[in-house]
């Protein structure tokens, strides 16, 4: 075994080395006076330092230390919070209902009726929305196709330089229109 590293010496003195490693280290120390002296030196410093009186600390030391230690945060999963809240609400509601003379069976039947009503209304609205969307797509599709064809024809006929000019002009008109409208609105006209 080669001579000890400083880290090994400190770990050995602190008793944080594995048993097998300690055996190797001790075998080496028997045959190496240099390493033995190095261990003795560090051990002497440890013993002498530990024999010193602890440094007095200010009265508020503990408070300051605790303030710097991050408080322990208990993480509660969101689903658990929702489940517990819903259960508590349901229990309170059931108790109130029973106190008012109702029964649990009525409550369950009423709740299922209400739920079924919401499902039916939701289904009707979803069907209407789907019909409207289909109609909008059918109406707008020919217009978009015509616009696309017109644009492609225009780009094939008009010189690229003119295309850039048209784009710049359109952008300028758009920006002027935007600022004009904004100014008009801000004046309150």
């Amino acid at each position: 075994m080669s001579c000890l590293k400083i880290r090994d010496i400190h770990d050995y003195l602190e008793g944080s080395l594995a048993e097998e490693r300690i055996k190797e280290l001790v075998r080496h120390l028997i045959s190496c006076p240099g390493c033995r002296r190095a261990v003795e030196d560090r051990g002497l410093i440890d013993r002498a330092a530990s024999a010193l009186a602890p440094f007095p600390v200010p009265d508020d030391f503990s408070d300051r230390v605790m303030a710097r230690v991050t408080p322990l945060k208990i993480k509660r999963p969101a689903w658990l919070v929702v489940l517990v809240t819903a259960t508590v609400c349901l229990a309170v509601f059931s108790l109130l209902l029973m106190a008012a003379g109702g029964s649990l069976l009525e409550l369950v039947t009423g709740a299922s009726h209400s739920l079924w009503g919401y499902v039916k209304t939701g289904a009707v609205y979803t069907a209407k929305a789907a019909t409207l969307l289909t109609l909008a797509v059918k109406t707008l599709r020919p217009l978009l196709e015509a616009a696309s064809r017109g644009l492609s024809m225009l780009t094939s006929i008009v010189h690229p330089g003119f295309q850039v000019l048209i784009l710049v002009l359109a952008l300028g008109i758009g920006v002027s229109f935007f600022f004009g409208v904004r100014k008009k609105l801000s004046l309150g006209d």
Partner: protein
Amino acid sequence: MPDGEPGIGRKFELAEVGQKIERALEKLPGPLRELFVWRHLNELSYEEMAEIKGLPVGTIKNRVFQAKEMLRRILQEMP
């Protein structure tokens, strides 16, 4: 590892080493001195020190070892 210097144990007795450590501590950089004092005089564990400092335990250990090595060098240079 052996450095050829005479051992501290041959130069000073334990009580004398203690007095010299007190003087040598003044020459240590503040952060290293603080950790050394916490560890050896106030007997805090590495885990406690790491929590207070918000640093990994390994880093704290390295700094304490570094402080001890500096102390040893200062003690060797003392008359």
